[in-house]
C-alpha cells in the first residue's frame, strides 16, 4: 500500500498559556494520499484553517508530528518543504503585496529557491492559470477578485509543489467567479498530479472538488466520509447532519400573508 504523502499524527495546536490557553486544534490525525483531494469542513472557529497553518509551519504545534513522505518535517520548515507544499489563501485582497506587480510577486519564490530562467517559468504559469502575458506587470489593485486569486494560485504553482493547501479559496468571490476558480483548480490538479487539502465551510464546494472529507468541530475531527457518501446523505454525526440540512436552504413556513 502506497505511503501517504502527508500524515498528521495526534497534532494539537494551542495558543496562549495557563488560564488563557486556547486549544485551536485538538489531537487531529489524518493522512493524505498522493494525488488525492481531501476536504476539511466545519463552521468558523472549528480549527480547520489552523490545521493548514500548522502543516505549513505558520502555527506552532504543541503536540504530535507531521510527516511528509514518511519523514518528520523540520521545524522551522526548510526550503525543500516549501518547494513541496504551498498554500492559497482566502482573501484575494490581502494575499498579494499591494506594491508589487504580478511579475514581482511571481519572481519572488523563484529568486528564493534560485530557480533558473524565471522569465519562462512566469509566462508558463500565467498561461496555466488562464491569465495572459498582459497581466504580468499590473498591480493588484488593477485586478479583479477572480484575477487576484488566479495570481495567488499561480504563485502557489510556480515552484511545482506536490501538495497545495487551499484555505477557503473561493469564499470571498462572487458565485460566477467561484465556478471559474473551482474549474481551474480541478484542471490544474489533473494536469500536474497535485494533492489538495481544501478547507471550506461550504459543503457543496467540498463535495465538488474533493473525493474524501473530514468534518471538524471544536478543534477535532468528528466524522470522515467520501464525497459520494455525503451526497447520498450517509451521515452519522448529528452536527454534520445539521450542516447538510442547513445547506439545503431555507424552507418557508406556510403563512396566511
Amino acid at each position, binding site marked *: 500500500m502506497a505511503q501517504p504523502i502527508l500524515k498528521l499524527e495526534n497534532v494539537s495546536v494551542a495558543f496562549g498559556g495557563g488560564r488563557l490557553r486556547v486549544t485551536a486544534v485538538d489531537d487531529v490525525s489524518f493522512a493524505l494520499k498522493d494525488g488525492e483531494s481531501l476536504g476539511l469542513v466545519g463552521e468558523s472557529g472549528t480549527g480547520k484553517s489552523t490545521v493548514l497553518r500548522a502543516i505549513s509551519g505558520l502555527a506552532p504545534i504543541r503536540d504530535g508530528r507531521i510527516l511528509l513522505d514518511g519523514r518528520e518535517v523540520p521545524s522551522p520548515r526548510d526550503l525543500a518543504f516549501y518547494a513541496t507544499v504551498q498554500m492559497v489563501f482566502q482573501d484575494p485582497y490581502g494575499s498579494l503585496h499591494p506594491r508589487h506587480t504580478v511579475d514581482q510577486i511571481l519572481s519572488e519564490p523563484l529568486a528564493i529557491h534560485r530557480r533558473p530562467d524565471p522569465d519562462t517559468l512566469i509566462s508558463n504559469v500565467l498561461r496555466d492559470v488562464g491569465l495572459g502575458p498582459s497581466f504580468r506587470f499590473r498591480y493588484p489593485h488593477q485586478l479583479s*477578485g477572480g484575477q487576484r486569486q488566479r495570481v495567488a494560485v499561480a504563485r502557489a504553482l510556480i515552484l511545482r509543489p506536490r501538495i497545495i493547501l487551499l484555505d477557503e479559496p473561493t469564499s470571498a468571490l462572487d*458565485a460566477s467567479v467561484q465556478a471559474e476558480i473551482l*474549474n481551474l483548480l*480541478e484542471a490544474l490538479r489533473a494536469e500536474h498530479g497535485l494533492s489538495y487539502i481544501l478547507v471550506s465551510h461550504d459543503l457543496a464546494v467540498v463535495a*465538488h472538488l474533493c473525493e474524501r472529507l473530514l468534518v471538524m468541530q471544536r478543534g477535532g475531527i468528528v466524522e470522515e466520509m467520501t464525497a459520494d457518501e455525503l451526497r447520498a446523505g450517509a451521515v452519522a454525526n448529528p452536527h454534520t447532519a445539521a450542516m447538510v440540512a442547513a445547506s439545503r*436552504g*431555507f*424552507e418557508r*413556513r406556510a403563512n396566511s400573508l
Partner: protein
Amino acid sequence: MSERPLLAIEDLRVRFKLRRGTVEAVRGISFSLGRERLGIVGESGSGKSQTGRAILGLTPPPGEVTAKRLEFDGIDLLSAGASQVWRLRGSRMTMVMQDPKYSLDPVMPVGAQIVEAYRAHVKASNAEAREKALEMLAAVQLRDPTRVLSLYPHELSGGMGQRVMIAMMLVTDPDLLIADEPTSALDVTVQLEVLRILDDLVSQRGMGLIFISHDLELVSSFCDRVLVMYAGKVVEELKASRLADAQHPYTRGLMRCLPKLEGDQHPLPVLDRDPAWAL
C-alpha cells in the same frame, strides 16, 4: 380595494462623481413594494446595496441620488427635507446590515443602544423603553434577555449580534425593513435560525421587506418576488416560486454555475458575460 404601495420607485439612479470619472452604481431601476417580501439579488458591483441605501437616504458622499419617483407611503423622499427623512428612517423604515461587529456601537451595551433607538423616535421614559427592549430581545428568541441587555457587542456571537440588530431595527415597529446581506457573515446553521426569526417577525407584523443578497437560492426561498440586478440595472423580475422559469441568460447562468451538494457538472458551467446585459 388597492392599497397605496409602501414603496414606489421609478428610474432610480445613483451616481458617484470621482476624480477619475463618474461611476454609475445604479442606472435606472423601477419597482414597487407592497406589504410583501422582495428580494434583490446580484453580485458585487451590481448596485444592490446602493439601491437599499438610496431608499433610506444613506448614500455616502460623493454619491448623488436621482429618480423620477422615490416615494415611501406616498411621501416623496427626494423632496422631503433632511429632518423628515431622518424621522422616517429608524421609525418607519429601517435597515439590518451584514456584520453586527461593524454595525453596532462597540462602546455601548446593546440594551442601551436599543433604548436609544426607541427613544429617538417614540416619546417614552427610560423604564418604558427598557421594557420594550426586553420585549424585542425576547421576540428574537434570545434566552435571558435581561442579561443580554447589559452585554457589549464584542461579547455576543455572530448569531446573537444579528438578532440584537434585528431587535433594534424592529423596536419602533417599522413598516419597511431593508435587510442587506443579513446572514452572509454567519455560519450556515446559525443563518437558518436567524432567517427563521426574521420570517416569523415579518409575517406577524405585516411588514414590507427588501432582502438584498448575492445568494439567489436563499432569496428565492425566503421572498415572494425577486429582482435580479446586473451592472446597476434590473435584468429580470420574477416570482420566487417560478425561479426555474427564469428567462434572462444572466439569471440562468448564475443558477447553473453553483456547485450543488446533490451532484453537478465537471467542469462547472461558467457564466459567459455578454456585454449586452450591461446596456
